[in-house]
């Protein structure tokens, strides 16, 4: 049954992606409304999938890359839906939803994790740790996509070459403030997630910090985002520079998320999460 929810969510999210891309081209509000409803339905089924997976595993479903990607995708959509309430910016969906659907496709292509879950993972700390970190990641993904949209739009206005995106993309101020707010809200989530992670490590492994590659890279990511936020709030960075920096930060984050887990080993790596 769990797989059914996953596939249903995947199907609806792909459908919403198609709809939102068509909306981007045709600019008809009706298409957006339908796509948005389909996305909501997909998100609900995705949530049901996560909950049912949570209960069947006894812990947050993030122990393999497949589940982690699907959870990442879910948190991006979740962040998007919250932003949609605030900004009512239809075009954001045409960028965000394809991105999260892309993660879902990768996730769906991977094998299911089978086997017993180590008791050590069946902890509320893990759920809180992973939940907050992923919420932060979801918001950073929004910041990343808003930054890309900003650069496209800024390039058009600066170079006075008005392509088909000029009308479709919102104003620079809007994109910059989406970038700003998603960083502003994402950063506490990441920070809180890292703190709960280290508490959980102390509780489970007896050490707050043990120079695990993922730990180190998470810290690097955190420092990158801290630097960006500092520049934004204290120095007054905005616009193009902030957009480029948030794209760089997100690349570091993706490396931490995928690269550090797959390539660098350590107790965070998916192979060790499953194997022992």
């Amino acid at each position, binding site marked *: 049954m769990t797989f059914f929810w996953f596939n249903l969510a995947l199907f609806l999210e792909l459908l919403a992606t198609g709809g939102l891309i068509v909306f981007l081209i045709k600019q008809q509000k009706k298409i957006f409304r339908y796509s948005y409803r389909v996305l909501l339905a997909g998100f609900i089924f995705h949530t049901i999938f996560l909950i049912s997976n949570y209960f069947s595993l006894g812990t947050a479903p993030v122990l393999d890359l497949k589940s982690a990607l699907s959870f990442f995708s879910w948190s991006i959509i979740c962040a998007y839906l919250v932003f949609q309430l605030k900004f009512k910016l239809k075009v954001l969906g045409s960028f965000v939803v394809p991105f999260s659907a892309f993660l879902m496709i990768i996730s769906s292509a991977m094998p299911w994790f089978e086997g017993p879950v180590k008791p050590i993972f069946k902890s509320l700390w893990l759920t809180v740790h992973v939940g907050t970190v992923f919420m932060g990641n979801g918001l950073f993904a929004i910041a990343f996509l808003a930054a890309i949209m900003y650069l496209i739009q800024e390039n058009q*206005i*600066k170079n006075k070459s*008005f392509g088909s995106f000029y009308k479709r993309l*919102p*104003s*620079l*101020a809007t994109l910059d403030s989406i970038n700003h707010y998603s960083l502003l809200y994402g950063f506490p989530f990441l920070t809180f997630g890292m703190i709960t992670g280290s508490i959980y490590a102390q509780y489970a492994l007896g050490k707050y910090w043990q120079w695990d590659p993922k730990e180190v890279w998470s810290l690097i990511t955190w420092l990158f985002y801290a630097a960006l936020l500092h520049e934004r709030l204290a120095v007054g960075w*905005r616009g193009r520079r902030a957009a480029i920096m948030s794209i760089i930060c997100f690349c570091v984050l993706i490396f931490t998320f995928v690269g550090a887990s797959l390539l660098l080993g350590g107790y965070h790596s998916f192979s060790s999460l499953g194997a022992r």
Partner: protein
Amino acid sequence: MSVMVKIINIGMNHETAAVGLRERLATGSYSISKTLASMRELDCIREGLFLSTCNRIEALFTTDSAAKAKESIVSLMSKAANIPEKELMPSLYIFEDTDAVRHIMRVASSLDSMVVGEPQILGQVKEAYVQATREKISGVIINRLMHRSFHAAKRVKTETEICEAAVSISYSAVELAKKIFHVLDGKKALLIGAGEMAELAAKHLIAQGVSSVVVANRTFERAVQVAELFDARPVSFEEIETQLVDVDIVLTSTASPEYVITYPQVKNAFKKRRNRPLFFIDIAVPRDVQPEVNKLENAYVYDIDDLKGVIELNKAQRQQEAIKAERIVQEEVFKFEKWFKTLEVVPTIVSLKDKVEDIIQAELKKSYSSFSDLTPHQIETIQTLMRSIAEKIINDPILYLKRKAERPMLNSYLDVTRNLFNLDQDNEDME
């Protein structure tokens, strides 16, 4: 046979000449009255008019010898603007007859403007016409043509929506500002220089929520005057640099030949602005804002050519109105042409009337001796009688010619008339 008078228009506009060349023309040291005076001195030019705005140059004239006149006018333009003919030629267009009539009507109606429908051009055309009459170089054709053009412009303005604010430069500037700032509420604008166009744009910005306007002008009194229009604060020219730190939108339209706002100034301002974006709308020619300013982060500089690019975006919506406006112009062109064609008939009609008058006078002279016992009143009655008989006789031929004025066969009708009444005084036929 009368020689055909041609109406010719030579000029350049924003489409044929790049902003650089137009800037050189706008800064050229020639004066309109001087140009008109040298036009008047040319034998091949019958009537003329010279229009020079920041976006166009037009020389409108009538001539009997088209080729020679065209040559002289081009060399006159090149001398006046101090640009070699070779460099000037590729940017020029030449319209003749109907095309010239249509062109000047489209110019007056603002259909040929960079910002179609902008209100300034009609005033500029009127001013050019006033100057031409002052220099006594306009004549019956130009007078008529210009009045018809003003009429066409008025019709286009009232009967179509092409002149609505939606197509004006201020509208496109506001649209751009919204793409940068999202909303203009609470934003500050700095207006440098004055002029109808700049004031219109400023009004538009205020209507969209811009909360405070600062006005700077080379002469402070003028700044105070303009500031009163918008409830704005006047500042001196020297304060511009400090103002750049505070404002969000800068609107420039001075006649200054050098840059009013330079790269180092804006760069300095950005240090104190905490990178808040700054949007320059430069509607002056020559430009007021150094183009390099656009290279600064968060600075966006739009000159008049750039704004045109934006305007083209909402072209589709205006297509319908444009068709209507072109139709109005076409109607007015037809009306003028109809009148112009009758001009060809006029010399023949005049000769015919002259001939009749000559005959009357000659016959009166012959019979004068037998009038001696008549009272002056009776003589007058006889004269009136003769004249009315003569007029009745030639009235139908005259009406006939006027009716045929638009026909392609007109020339042969004129020929027949002239031969029939022997208007060209051929000696052999007299015998």
